[in-house]
């Protein structure tokens, strides 16, 4: 795995390597690996990376948190780490203290809306909420007469319909029916649903890019082991070219995702340039998941299509992550509208802004 001089990432990678080895996870049909992993991550303060000390978190920088998410993607971990980080980040925007334990965010789709009733209760539905069933609390972005607010909600107050995404992870429908939040505060200027979706989108982009890095690694390794026609399959030019394309897709995903993360981490405001970065990352990473994942499976032949093999832990999650916080076609339409609206002669200045 990639060496890092980032202490947050180093800590996380060590925990993942010890407790989230993909083969061990794959063999464990009861999911008994999840509790010790979550405990170790929590003890290291990682789920609340983006929450400042005074709000109960460990106060890592946005940049460090993003790097951590990329590492989590490389291990394709299926615990609500990214979701709790996002929830903590959202709560911190409104200076709400984060509770202990698993969290997730609502809404998880740009089209769903949670509203604030006159008495301050929350209502609305959000589909495809990752790990809702596993969460003890939700960080909710809600719309009221006064504008946008951020709320902390006790998960037991919500109605949850179970679902699974294509990666076999919880992806649930959450309905709030006049639920009184634990706390609620106005969102600061600039933090709105688009902002939350793009933060979530970049989070997923970094995870997809990480999963692709691992798919490339295991595909290269496999091609150097598997023998057919008395040769390692890595010696066939057609296989080499497929792997070269996978390397390209993996590199493109990582470049798009890390560039967007860097843009957000250094942004003073959420302007068009940041929007371009974040939307592009989600679009390009989703495309890379489709193309790159296809190649990884092709190289592995039938073995990669089995539940015994670890490939699906990366490939299916990468495909599933495309759907959260706006799919690539959603963002492509939005980005296309933005570009068209700015006009033809403003396209290049936008692209060449960094």
């Amino acid at each position, binding site marked *: 795995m990639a060496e890092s001089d980032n202490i947050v990432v180093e800590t996380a990678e060590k925990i993942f390597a010890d407790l989230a080895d993909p083969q061990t996870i794959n063999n464990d049909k009861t999911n008994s690996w999840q509790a010790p992993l979550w405990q170790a991550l929590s003890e290291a303060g990682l789920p609340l990376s983006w929450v400042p000390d005074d709000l109960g978190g460990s106060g890592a920088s946005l940049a460090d948190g993003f790097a951590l998410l990329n590492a989590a993607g490389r291990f394709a971990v299926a615990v609500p780490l990214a979701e709790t980080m996002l929830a903590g980040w959202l709560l911190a925007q409104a200076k709400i203290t984060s509770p202990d334990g698993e969290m997730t965010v609502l809404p998880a789709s740009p089209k769903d809306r949670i509203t604030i009733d006159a008495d301050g209760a929350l209502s609305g539905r959000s589909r495809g909420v990752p790990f809702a069933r596993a969460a003890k609390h939700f960080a909710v972005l809600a719309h009221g007469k006064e504008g946008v607010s951020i709320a902390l909600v006790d998960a037991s107050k919500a109605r949850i319909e179970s679902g699974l995404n294509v990666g076999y992870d919880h992806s649930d429908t959450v309905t709030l029916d006049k639920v009184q939040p634990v706390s609620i505060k106005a969102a600061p200027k600039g933090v709105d649903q688009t902002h939350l979706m793009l933060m979530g989108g970049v989070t997923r982009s970094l995870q997809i890019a990480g999963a692709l*890095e691992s798919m490339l690694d295991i595909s290269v390794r496999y091609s150097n082991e598997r023998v057919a026609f008395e040769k390692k399959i890595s010696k066939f030019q057609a296989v080499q070219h497929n792997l070269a394309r996978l390397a390209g897709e993996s590199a493109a995903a990582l470049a798009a995702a890390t560039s967007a993360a860097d843009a957000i981490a250094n942004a003073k405001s959420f302007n068009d340039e940041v929007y371009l970065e974040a939307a592009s990352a989600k679009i390009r990473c989703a495309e890379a998941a489709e193309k790159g994942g296809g190649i990884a499976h092709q190289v592995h032949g039938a073995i990669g299509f089995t539940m015994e093999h670890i490939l699906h832990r990366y490939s299916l999650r990468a495909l599933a992550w495309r759907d959260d916080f706006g799919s690539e076609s959603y963002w492509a339409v939005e980005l296309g509208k933005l570009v*068209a609206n700015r006009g033809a002669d403003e396209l290049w200045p936008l692209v060449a802004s960094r």
Partner: protein
Amino acid sequence: MTAALRFDPIRLPEKCEQLRKEVRAFLADEIAAGTFDPHKPNREDTDAPEFSRRVGAKGWLGMTWPKKYGGQERSFLERYVVTEEMRVANAPTRRFFVADRQSGPVLLKYAPEHIKMEILPRICRGEICFAIGMSEPNSGSDLFAAKTRATKTDGGYLINGTKIWTSSAHIADYMIAIFRTSQPTKENRRHGLTQFLVKMKQPGIKVNPIGQITGQYEFNEVVFTDHFIPDDHVLGEVDGAWKQATSELAYERSGPERFLETYYVLTELVRAVGPNPDTRSAEGIGRLVAQLHTMRRMSVSVAGMLEAGKEPVVEASIVKDIGTVWEQQLPHRVRDLAAFVEETATNRETLERQLDFAIKTAPKLTIQGGTTEVLRGIIARGLGLR
């Protein structure tokens, strides 16, 4: 060990943004003065020699080279900005671009001092044009099959044979070429080629134009018959050109010109679609912009690696592979989306004319500067598969 390649999200420093403004202003003036038409890619370039001199006078040629050779000792990132602004504006750069990107750096590294002093300042002033003599009728991808001979004679070499697909040979003042100085060895089939500086428009060199499917004449056949090259025009090690060739490639393959050659059709599509696109057009444009943005960030990142003194051969190959495949499919995607453009779009005629040209241009993009198949071979080597 990870096989993944990282492209750090470097940002262009502030001074690049200042420079970008200067380049844009300069190009706007040139367009206003009628030097070139940014909406007409199939241009005649009649004023190109004068344009080159004006770019040179701005200090935008040989930007990264030492001052004593006429350079500016500026960064690769600054050069990058100039290149992309010229490319996006469709400026007539053909005359100076090869010298600036490739030939100059080769001379800097391998030419004797008096030749550097003579030629490099002239490149920087935009006075001279270079061509690259690599390909031969039976040696394209397989460069090491080149046969054109350089036979040792008194004070120099006699050249016999034929180069082909040589871009700009008809207007070039010089060519940097590889010729066979001895036979390959059993151990090393790459051995025996030497790099030379060739002065064009001399006895023993005949340039025959070759028409392209776009209707343009840009490349040529160059026939050498007992053409004499003096000893001091040998570049680098005799028989060792193979060692020199690879480091050039990162410069040739990762620049913005490797994904922006058909960019103009995207701008015109956005213009034709107008401020309120239907869903299909919006999605199409959004995806193309996301892909473009991603490649550009990778390309800027490689420029940063070059600036840091690295030789990112594999990374550059990835950018060229993804970039040229993208710019090749771009006109076809735009054509697809343009089917829904209103008849009344003000730039409809321009868009159609540009699409016609871009679709004819597209097939060459994955061939020039190294074919996609060869690049994927290089990437596969980088992955440890060969």
